[in-house]
Every structure is written in structure tokens, then in C-alpha cells.
């Protein structure tokens, strides 16, 4: 599959949609796709899909290329970049809804909405790179999931180009809507395996008037998680993390296992929450406010362990989190109230050790009723590494049918999702 005849692909797709729409992959895109097509609208996306199906070549939607570059064992033939489909179609601040094209980055969207004191409260690492399409496709999330949920809770309408180039929509632009099947959920976290998203509609939310966070360091994972659970019970927080020593340092807080409790709301609320947090967390707890707090929150959001051998996302019932984070080789940022953590394994230069450590954590997470997804692995470790857990048998059978139904020609980002779908 890695032997795409790139010049031939360029000729084929140039003939289809014009020279200005086709280019060579750049940087990390080279690991994701052999050529890059840049359609200007849903119709062109549909044409590309039909051509790929007719010629039996693979395609995948591509934003910044981060996710695909990591997960693709080999590049797809055509990376469908949505960089030129990045417009805001309609933003209604008073309805708190926004319709935008999938190539728009989260940061760009939030610059617009910020003018009205609103934001799309999804905060994956590096929102200046995260396109809305990738946000949905890879179901990215960050600390704000604690109070605002994830993209799954915020996406209220979607349009996508499916097999045969058919243009499909689900949902709408109202915040409460149960008409028809929930295609938004089907597309969320589907990693481009079911079609190419061409338009997105989200709920947006007000930005809290005031933000601060409280933090306190603990000597071990268990006591940090216990403290986090206690403050979670006592206060409605904006976010709640437990960070390992290396992660704490990366965020700019001193080492130790740090509990970070986000405090949002009116001035009065934040003042009261701050007092409560100080009284509950360890004696050395501190409050950070203002621009300093916002900068630290961004470092927390962006802490993605760029140099680690393996980075993974684990999710378990929150009460099970502590024991999944205990292995000494693990560094992490854990969203304690959600039972979700981004973990990193740096096992020196030994790929076998890193794989073995991952397997152990996978077993622990599985036994705790959760799941693990690899986000990134160093190239010497990637070969043969399962990025996704294997779903239970009956569920997987449904997933295979879903994939076959939505992608009968098998062209949409094949062979890198769960169970090789």
C-alpha cells in the first residue's frame, strides 16, 4: 500500500479538480498521505471520494496531520486537507451556536467567539493546530471536559461526504433536537473511517468571568488522587487534574504529584472557591490568578509529552484512576474527575521494555473496566503496536458492519482504527 505512484495520483486528481487543488505532502503529512488534495467545498470532496472509490485508492481527511501521521502504518494515497474549507458559516452569539467548516482551527474559532465572551469549550493540546474536523474525528479533549463535557456533548449538527460522494447531514442548529439518528455521535471519534466531515455545528458556552486555580503537591499518586476526589466532592470545579512530577514541572509548578483545581465563575464564586480549595488541599496549597493562571492552564492543556517513547490516553471509572497511574515509569496529566489521563512512558532506548510496560498498563486499565488508546509512539516502537484496544466481540461485530456499511469500498482511512478497521 505504500507504493502509491504519486506522480500518477497527482495527474489523476489534477485532472479531476484542477492543479491548484493538488500538492505534495509537507512535514508530518508525508507520513499520512502520498498526495494532498485541497478541495474548496463539499462537492469537490465528493468528487475526490468518487474518484478514489473508482480507482481503488485510499483517502483520509487531514487537518494538521498530527493524528494520522502517528496512527497510519502506511500513508493513504490522498490526504484530503480541509485547509481551504475553514470558514465560519454562521455564528449566532445569542443562540450560542456556531456553524463552521472543518478546516477551521479551534483557536481561530475561539478568537471569533471570544469577541462575544463565548468559546467552544474543548481544549485539546495546541488548539492553533487542532482543526474542528480533527477535534471531532479524533474526539480530542482536555481539562475543560470536567465541567463542559467533550466534543460529543457539544456537536449538534454535522455534514459529511460519505461513500459514493453522497452528502449527508444529521442534527441541526438547535441545542435540543431528537429528530432522526444521531449521526454526530457516529462521526465523533471515527478517525475519518466513515467519511469526510464537511460542516460542523456546535453549541458554544459563555467564558467564565474569572478564572484561577489552586494547586498543592503530594508525595504519591494515591494521596494526590484522594485529595482530588475530596475537592471534587466539595466544589463544582472548572477542571481538576493530578499531574505527575515531570508533568508538574512542564506546567511550571514544582515537582511532586500536583493536584490542580480550576476555579471559574464570578468574582464572588472564585473567591469563595479559592478559600475552600485552600482549606481542603495540602497545607502548602497556593492559588494562582490572572494572566499567570491562564498561561499555566495553557501549559497544562498543551502538556503532551513530546519526547516520550509512548504517549497514551487511558480512561477508567474515576475511582480506579490512582492504581492505573501508580507504575513508576508513568508520567501523566490526569483529569481526575473524569477518570481520563494522558500518560507517557519513557523507558529509555529499549523498545521491548516500553512495549512491555504499555502492555502491563493496558491490562490494569482493562481490568479496571476502562480502555487505552495509544496517541503516539516513537518510530522504533510503532511497528506492530496496537493503537486501540480490541472491543468486546459483539460490539466489534457491529463496528465492522458499520464500517462496511458506510465505507463499502474500503477507501476511508483503512486499517488503522480498532481491530484494523
Amino acid at each position, binding site marked *: 500500500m505504500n507504493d502509491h505512484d504519486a506522480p500518477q495520483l497527482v495527474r489523476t486528481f489534477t485532472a479531476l479538480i484542477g492543479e491548484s487543488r493538488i500538492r505534495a505532502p509537507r512535514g508530518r503529512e508525508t507520513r499520512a498521505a502520498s498526495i494532498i488534495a485541497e478541495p474548496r467545498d463539499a462537492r469537490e470532496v465528493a468528487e475526490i471520494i468518487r474518484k478514489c472509490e473508482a480507482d481503488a485508492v485510499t483517502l483520509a481527511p487531514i487537518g494538521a496531520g498530527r493524528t494520522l501521521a502517528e496512527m497510519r502504518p502506511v500513508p493513504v494515497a490522498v490526504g484530503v486537507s480541509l485547509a481551504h474549507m475553514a470558514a465560519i458559516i454562521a455564528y449566532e452569539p*445569542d*443562540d*450560542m451556536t456556531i456553524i463552521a467548516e472543518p478546516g477551521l482551527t479551534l483557536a481561530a474559532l475561539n478568537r471569533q467567539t471570544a469577541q462575544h*465572551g463565548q468559546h467552544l469549550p474543548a481544549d485539546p493540546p495546541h488548539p492553533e493546530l487542532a482543526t474542528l474536523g480533527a477535534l471531532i474525528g479524533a474526539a480530542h479533549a482536555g481539562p475543560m471536559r470536567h465541567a463542559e*463535557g467533550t466534543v*460529543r456533548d457539544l456537536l449538534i449538527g454535522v455534514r459529511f461526504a460519505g461513500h459514493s460522494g*453522497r*452528502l449527508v447531514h444529521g442534527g*441541526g*442548529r*438547535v*441545542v*435540543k*433536537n*431528537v*429528530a*432522526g*439518528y*444521531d*449521526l454526530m*455521535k*457516529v462521526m*465523533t*471519534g*471515527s478517525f475519518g473511517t466513515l467519511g469526510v466531515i464537511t460542516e460542523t455545528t456546535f453549541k458554544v458556552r*459563555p467564558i467564565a468571568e474569572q478564572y484561577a486555580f489552586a494547586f498543592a503537591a503530594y508525595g504519591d499518586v494515591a494521596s494526590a488522587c484522594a485529595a482530588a476526589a475530596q475537592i471534587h466532592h466539595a*466544589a*463544582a470545579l472548572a477542571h481538576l487534574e493530578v499531574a505527575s512530577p515531570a508533568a508538574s514541572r512542564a506546567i511550571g509548578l514544582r515537582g511532586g504529584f500536583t493536584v490542580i483545581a480550576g476555579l471559574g*465563575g*464570578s*468574582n464572588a*464564586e472564585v*473567591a*469563595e*472557591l479559592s478559600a475552600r480549595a485552600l482549606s481542603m488541599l495540602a497545607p502548602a496549597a497556593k492559588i494562582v490568578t490572572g494572566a499567570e493562571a491562564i498561561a499555566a492552564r495553557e501549559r497544562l492543556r498543551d502538556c503532551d509529552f513530546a519526547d516520550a517513547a509512548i504517549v497514551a490516553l487511558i*480512561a*477508567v*471509572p*474515576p*475511582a*480506579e484512576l490512582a492504581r492505573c497511574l501508580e507504575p513508576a515509569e508513568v508520567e501523566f496529566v490526569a483529569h481526575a474527575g473524569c*477518570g481520563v489521563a494522558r500518560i507517557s512512558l519513557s523507558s529509555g532506548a529499549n523498545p521491548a521494555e516500553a512495549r512491555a510496560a504499555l502492555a502491563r498498563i493496558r491490562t490494569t486499565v482493562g481490568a479496571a*473496566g*476502562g*480502555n487505552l*488508546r495509544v496517541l503516539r509512539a516513537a518510530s522504533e516502537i510503532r511497528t506492530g503496536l496496537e493503537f*486501540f*484496544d480490541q*472491543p*468486546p466481540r*459483539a*460490539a466489534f*461485530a*457491529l*463496528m465492522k*458492519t*458499520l*464500517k462496511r*456499511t458506510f465505507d463499502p469500498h474500503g477507501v476511508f482511512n483503512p486499517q488503522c482504527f*480498532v481491530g484494523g478497521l
Partner: protein
Amino acid sequence: MSSNGTSRLDPHLIAELRAAIGDDAVVSRAAELKVYECDGWTIEKAAPEILLRPRTTAEVSAVLKILHRDGVAFVPRGAGTGLSGGCLPLGAPVMICTSRMNRILAVDYLSRRVEVESGVVNLHVSNAVAARGFFYAPDPSSQAACTIGGNIAENSGGPHTLKYGVTTNHVLGLEIVLPDGEIAALGSAAEERCGYDLVGAVVGAEGTAGIVTRATLKLTREPEARRTMLAVFNDVDDATRAVSAIIAAGIIPCAIELMDQLIIRAVEAAFHAGLPTDAGAVLIIELDGATAGLDDHAQRVGELVRGAGAREVRLARDDAERAILWKARKRAFGAVGRLAPNYATQDGVVPRTRLPDILRAIGAIALRNNLRIGNVFHAGDGNIHPIVLYDERDADQTRRAVAAGREILQACVAMGGSLTGEHGIGAEKIAEMPLIFSPEDLIVMSELRRVFDPGGRANPNKVIPTPGSCVEVSAPRRQVPI
């Protein structure tokens, strides 16, 4: 008696079903089956040929395997409080009721998870965890009777979903028996999914994916405090504009409910709740959250609604006053019964900023059809529930009431809204689906449905229009409380 036009079930099949789950779990006498001939949408009635009341997942599986072998269609049923005919058997001779699977299996307070069987009553979940300061957030008005399984089928909402979200935001894992009898575990107690979000596909699928037997739900912490207020307006237009003003100010109350003059007067005549009968509309606004700052928010909301034209704002001073306000709201539908022999409630959605427009449109539709239409609804979500008053003994009035309901839905769609905010498509609105979805959209949705149910035997003739499935609505929509 079957009213589905299908042939009678084979007696051998019935005997086999009895053997599989026990005689006491099978209802087949016509008189008893009459109870199950409709849900809260009473326009159309059809009793199943047989009702099965399994107690366990294994029994559901055994039953569905038998039905699968013989190619027999079935309809799942919870408590039958649905409002769109979702559990009306249309071409499905067998009804499978989950109400005996009503155990709360496990509560994990630290993780804020509860695992329940699907026949558990919604309110029982909240009651079971209330002592520890938790609740289950989705709160449909039928919550004292409706089941979690039914909520999952319909993706139910309620007044407080403005802040807390609807059912799909609170369901993490499901156990479902697929139409071929296979038991599938979808999702888990963890927040992230492994593979496609099949839980998200099943919630709101209106019982067409199979029979959900268990669910893992999120629990929500009780807020520290609440502030509930009544804002009184001379003009309904001002009331609807006030809704947008509050939302636009960045304040998300946990509920904003609107009642117009017709409803206010009916409520006052019935219950003397102290609502001003000369008002054009009132809003009931509830805020919740941390005690600190809540009074500031309440004051700000007061300023905003006054700015939008409220002539008076009353803050409930204690729980008793709060209870009176909510009683007035929740009993509104009962009160409407005094105004006309019959009434029919619609469920539509518009973008919040279009509330003034849709209420004006409803006024015009009432005038044009020479009908009275009252409004009591979830204003904060833009989820309207117009109540069309009529007398079913008057055929022409009945016809006009049906027409008015459809015109209201068309107006919602024209304003960028939707056919249903929380009641579902069911049998009721199947004919209207093409108003908002293209043939291509509907094909894809039916393909998604067939992923779970290739034989098309789970709750057939619902949600997606197919030739022959469209119900010709000859009488207005239901008259049950929302």
C-alpha cells in the same frame, strides 16, 4: 387481537415463548393487552398480539432468538409514557416490556456511576442516591413513571436539561440484546470509548436497535443552592426576548420555562398559585450552583428581565415558594383541561433567538384556523410546546387542530429549527421527517439502523418514513402532560 394487519402468531411459537420465560411473563388475553395499545400519543391505537415481560437479559435474549428464527417483529416498551407513539406496535405482533427488569445494580459514588437495569423508573435512580447528595440529571416530567430504558430510546430531556444536558450526555455504557438475540456490551463505565460510539448511536434510536437491558449512567452532584424566580411580562414578545437576553449575558440558568396568558389563566382558575392573570406571559427562571455568587447572578437576571420589559420579578424566598412556582408549571397541562374538551400538544424547536417569531407565528396560525393555542414550554432551549385546544366532537375543528399542529412544525423548520426537541419522531412525526432530512440523509439513517437490525424487526415503521409506514394523522396530537 392484532390490529397490525399481520397474521396471527403461530401457537407453537407462543408455547415456545411461554416455555422460555414462564407463563407468568406472557400476557396474551385481549382484555389485558388493551392496556398496551398506546403510549402517551393516543391518536392511534394498536394492541400487540402478545406481551412478554422478561426478568433478565438472558430471558430477553432467549425470546429474541426465537423471534429471530421465525422472522417475527417486536416492539420494546418501558412504562408507555412516550409522547410520539414510539412503543405503538405497527407491524410488530410481539411487545417486550422491560418493567420487571427494575433493579439498581451498583452505585459507585466515588466514580459517580450507577448501573441499572433498563426497567428502573427514572426518579427511582435519583431517589436511591439522594441521601448522598447526588441525582440523575435528565428529568422528563413523567420521571415518576418513565423508565431509563424508555429515556434511552427517546433521548429524553426535561426542564433542567438547559444546564445539565439530555439523556445521551449521561449514558456511558449499555447492555443491549440485538434483534438476533445476541447480547452486546457497548461502551463502559469509562468516559472514553473504544472504537465507534455505538452507545451514542443507540441512545435516541427509539428502540430500533434492539432491547437495552442495562445501562451505566453518570450521577450528578446536587447543587449547593438554587434561586427560583418568577418574571411577569405584559407582552409575550418581551418574555421571549428576555430569554435571549439572559443567555446572551453568559448566564446559563438550570431552567427557563415560559407560560403565556392562556395558560396562566387556566392555572389560576384551577390552582390559585398567585400568578397575575392580566400578564401576557411569565417566565420561571431557576439558577443553581455554588452559594457564593448565586445572589449576584439572580440579581443580574432580575436586571436583564426588567430591561427586556418585565414589570415585576419575584424571587422565591424559600423552598415552599419555589415549590408553588414549579407546581404551577407542572400542573399547567392539567389546568388546560378546563378550557376545552380536548387539547393537543406539539413539540418543536427553534433557535432561541427566534422564540418571538415562532410565538407570533403560532398566534397567526391560531387566528387563521380559528383556534385557541396556549404556550407552556422550555424556553431556555427554544423547545416549544404549543397546546392546541379543540373539541373532538366537532369534526371541522378537529381537522383545523391537526392542520395547526402541522403548520407550527413547518414554521419551526422554516426558522431553522427541528421537528422534535424531546418527544421523538416515533409514529407521530414520521411523515414530517422529509421536512428536515433529504432522501440521502434518510437512506444513511436507515443504513445505520440496519447495522443493528438487518432484518428490520425491531420497532418497525418508526422514525424513518418508508412506503406504507406513514401514519395519516386524522386527529390532533396527544393531550398528556409534558
